[in-house]
């Protein structure tokens, strides 16, 4: 395990100092014996990096394999955390799954499906003008949402690679004890950090602000949505 971590650290350091970005790849050890031609990896040398003398006999590069800290062309992640809502924005336990698809060197499409599970406490009442008012707590209600965002990755900062996300979602929220349901269209903005912990695997942690509107039953009509979310989980490279 310790040796593995050292290898990851060396790979990360090499990725940052030796060009970084999506095409970073650990250089072969010049002291190591050259592998027999049959064993030579076809993608041992990434494009743009001169072939090392020790592997000069390796086959030409066919495709560039992603480095250990690379998000990859496609990736998925699973995250868990908490969401803070209030009024008619649900909050509580947040579970989310994401699908990432690379759009450019630094940008990925980030499609998220999230589930929020809060308490079922009632928080709605009729005011003296007979208008329905909902005043739920920060961890009340439940919601399901699909969100389409663009994730912009920044250059690695040591072992961390920060990013920001911005996009829009479509969701359904429910406050069961009040029999209140709604369809929401919130904007999502936030950021996070990812740390590669193994080839094709990274730990991610992110926070986001949710701001938008929803349409609700029980004569509530259009209501604002305002919430915060903090989640963390694991991200797995697919390609």
């Amino acid at each position: 395990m310790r040796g593995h971590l050292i290898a990851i650290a060396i790979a990360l350091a090499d990725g940052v100092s030796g060009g970084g970005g999506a095409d970073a790849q650990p250089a072969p050890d010049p002291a190591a014996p050259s592998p027999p031609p049959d064993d030579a990896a076809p993608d041992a040398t990434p494009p743009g990096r001169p072939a090392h003398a020790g592997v000069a006999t390796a086959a030409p590069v066919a495709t560039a394999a992603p480095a250990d800290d690379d998000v990859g062309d496609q990736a998925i992640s699973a995250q868990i955390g908490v969401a803070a809502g209030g009024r008619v924005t649900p909050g509580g336990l947040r579970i989310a799954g994401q699908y990432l698809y690379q759009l450019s060197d630094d940008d990925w499409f980030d499609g998220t499906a999230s589930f929020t599970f809060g308490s079922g406490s009632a928080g709605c009442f009729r005011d003296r003008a007979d208008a329905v008012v909902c005043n739920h707590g920060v961890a009340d209600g439940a919601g399901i949402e699909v969100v389409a965002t663009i994730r912009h990755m920044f250059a690695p900062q040591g072992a961390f690679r920060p990013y920001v996300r911005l996009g829009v979602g479509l969701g359904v929220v429910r406050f069961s004890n009040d029999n209140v349901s709604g369809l929401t269209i919130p904007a999502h903005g936030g950021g996070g950090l990812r740390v590669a912990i193994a080839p094709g695997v990274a730990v991610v942690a992110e926070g986001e602000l949710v701001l938008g509107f929803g349409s609700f039953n029980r004569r509530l009509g259009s209501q604002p949505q305002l919430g915060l979310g903090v989640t963390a989980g694991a991200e797995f490279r697919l390609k």
Partner: protein
Amino acid sequence: MRSAILAIVGALAACQTSDVSRSVGARCDVMDECDQRCLTPSTAYPGGFCTLTCADRTACPDGTTCVTREGGVCLFTCASESDCEFLGENWHCLSLDLQGGGIQVKACAGT
């Protein structure tokens, strides 16, 4: 940019405020509409009135007091008729017996 975001968040947080709550003051027809107790619509409580059962005034939220009605319930305190206008038509500022106090206090009620 930061001040604009704060302004939007503040505006959203400030909207939909109310002088009443599910605890005390909301209109109601049934108990489920209140945190604890619904005084159903009548001439005594026009439109219905969500409230809390109390043994003395310390059991009532700020701005309310415990009167001897219905075995002890919290009602909004008042000094004049205008203080009860927010509850709607037919609410008045009346002198009622304080629960557990042996004195009279002014509180909003229908009759």
